[in-house]
């Protein structure tokens, strides 16, 4: 069955995030020859359109406007609303990101449609699209299909298989006027405070170095940041570390907090409360460093070192430095 897809390109710091390519791979696979279009919204984003064809886009709608530089629900939804009415997709895909999480349900409500959030897999079964998603932050999973109506879905980064770009494949680029009237925007952004300490976003990071109560203080995170820098990793934390004030809540990983599935998760001084394990135990490889050999984190870890993180982490940093320089 041919299906038409509309994918919202997810951007960060002026670049297309990998999750967009992951979504395009799935859209291409499931389209059955139906058109895969991409909505590319922002300020000065036309330059990004060309690269999307190689990942599976047939058409790219480019909508440029200074009002789209940051995400404003009314601005983004009015543009997407129009694009959906133009392209008439069967499926609207977005990333499960700060933008997609906020925007998809707004549009799904407007189109009286269902939505499946935080998708980690999608397949066609008996003519239906069946979406797999975690519940209870990954303590369990459900498979969901749609009974009726247009499909809205948000996709978790790092989970759908990445596809290799097909060089020479191009998309038709269509520039669409934004038609945003400033009066129609009911909220506006006065200021953006950049707080992300490293350039690597936690939910999309391939490697995460995470600290718990064992880190003992805000200063105690320093060796973790040093290790993260060598590995190009993001730094995360357990609820214990956040509650104790060692770090910002935006770093928290767990059932309350972010759910992550990196290739490598290095847990330092984290005992492994159930609510933390829910947020990270689906990582591909888990390394635990903890003084307490009985800590529950060792039950989910692929590799464990029983020892003091302040001794082990700097040694790891040195060893990685040495090996990666080879």
């Amino acid at each position, binding site marked *: 069955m041919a299906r038409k897809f509309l994918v919202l390109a997810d951007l960060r710091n002026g670049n297309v995030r990998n999750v967009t390519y992951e979504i395009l791979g799935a859209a291409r696979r499931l389209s059955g020859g139906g058109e895969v279009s991409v909505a590319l919204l922002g300020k000065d984003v036309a330059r990004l359109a060309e690269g999307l064809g190689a990942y599976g886009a047939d058409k790219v709608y480019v909508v440029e406007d200074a009002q789209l530089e940051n*995400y404003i629900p009314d601005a983004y939804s009015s543009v997407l609303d129009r694009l959906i009415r133009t392209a008439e997709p069967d499926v609207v895909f977005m990333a499960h*990101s*700060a933008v997609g*999480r*906020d925007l998809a*349900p*707004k549009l799904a*409500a407007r189109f*009286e*449609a*269902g*939505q*499946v*959030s935080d998708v980690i897999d999608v397949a066609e079964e008996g003519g239906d699209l069946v979406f797999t998603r*975690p*519940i*209870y932050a990954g*303590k*369990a*999973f*459900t*498979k*969901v299909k*749609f*009974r009726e109506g247009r499909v809205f879905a948000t996709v978790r980064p790092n989970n759908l298989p990445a596809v290799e770009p097909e060089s020479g494949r191009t998309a038709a680029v269509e520039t669409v006027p934004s038609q945003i009237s400033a009066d129609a925007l*009911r*909220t*506006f*952004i*006065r200021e*953006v*405070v950049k*707080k*992300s*300490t490293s350039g690597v*976003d936690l939910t999309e990071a391939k490697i995460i170095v995470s600290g718990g109560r064992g880190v003992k203080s805000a200063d105690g995170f320093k060796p973790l940041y040093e290790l993260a820098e060598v*590995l190009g990793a993001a730094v995360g934390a357990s609820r214990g570390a956040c509650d104790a004030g060692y770090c910002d*809540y*935006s*770093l928290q990983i767990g*059932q309350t907090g972010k759910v992550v599935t990196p*290739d*490598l998760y290095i847990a330092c001084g984290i005992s492994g*409360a*159930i*609510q933390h394990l*829910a947020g990270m135990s*689906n990582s591909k*490889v888990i390394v635990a460093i903890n003084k307490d050999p009985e800590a529950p984190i*060792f*039950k989910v*870890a*692929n*590799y*464990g*070192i029983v020892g003091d993180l302040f001794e*082990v982490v700097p040694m*790891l940093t040195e*060893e990685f430095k040495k*090996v990666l320089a080879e």
Partner: protein
Amino acid sequence: MNIIVCMKQTFDTEERIVLENGKIKEDGVKFVINPYDEYAVEEAIRLKEQHGGQVTVITLGPSRAEEALRTALAMGADEGVIIDDPSLFGDEYTAARVLAAAVQKFPYDIILCGNQAVDDGSGQVAVRLAELLGIPHIGTITKLEVAGGKVTAHRDAEGDVEVVEGTLPVLVTAQQGLNEPRYPSLIGIRKANKKSLTRFTAADLGVDAGAVRARTEIVETFLPQPKTGGRILEGDLADQVKELVRALRTEEKVL
């Protein structure tokens, strides 16, 4: 100020998930106010303390959710509303339609919700509700100020903070870090237990259950493969570190 909080009762986050006949078992489970909704309740009470007014807490769910409502009342909310009509239980599309009908029975200046529930984790219902009510929303906020009909909120956008402004009426969704929810006082608990709750059915809300039927359907619920625990490295610490790095590179190939 008329303040509405929409909340859900969920499993405590320390609970394990057990399946029985393909369904999640609820026997013996400790239930709590969804932690994100608890931030919303706390913030609502603080707004009332600052500006005066009334906090109405609304929940859609089975009758066990009454306990969560009473907790919110004990914290300081004024009125509790439960929609425990099973014909209105469906997916996020259903929940938002039903809550919109319930919310419209009350005056409101601001609506607060959690940004997601720790069970389904969809993060849809609050945003949908704002859209259905025709009011703007500000999602995943970590700070809120309301003054003279103007709202300023800090929105958590993947680690960055957006300072967002708007005007009432507005719906905001609470993110962790917004506040530290209070514990109900003994007097609060006693008062809350005596309060009568408002109950709504589909007929009370004028909602046709067929018209708000779930758009989605759960085909299967399953548990992840249990982890067996891996290798605890042994020997001299320097050797352990070397061995770990080697294994990550050559066996796991994650570097």
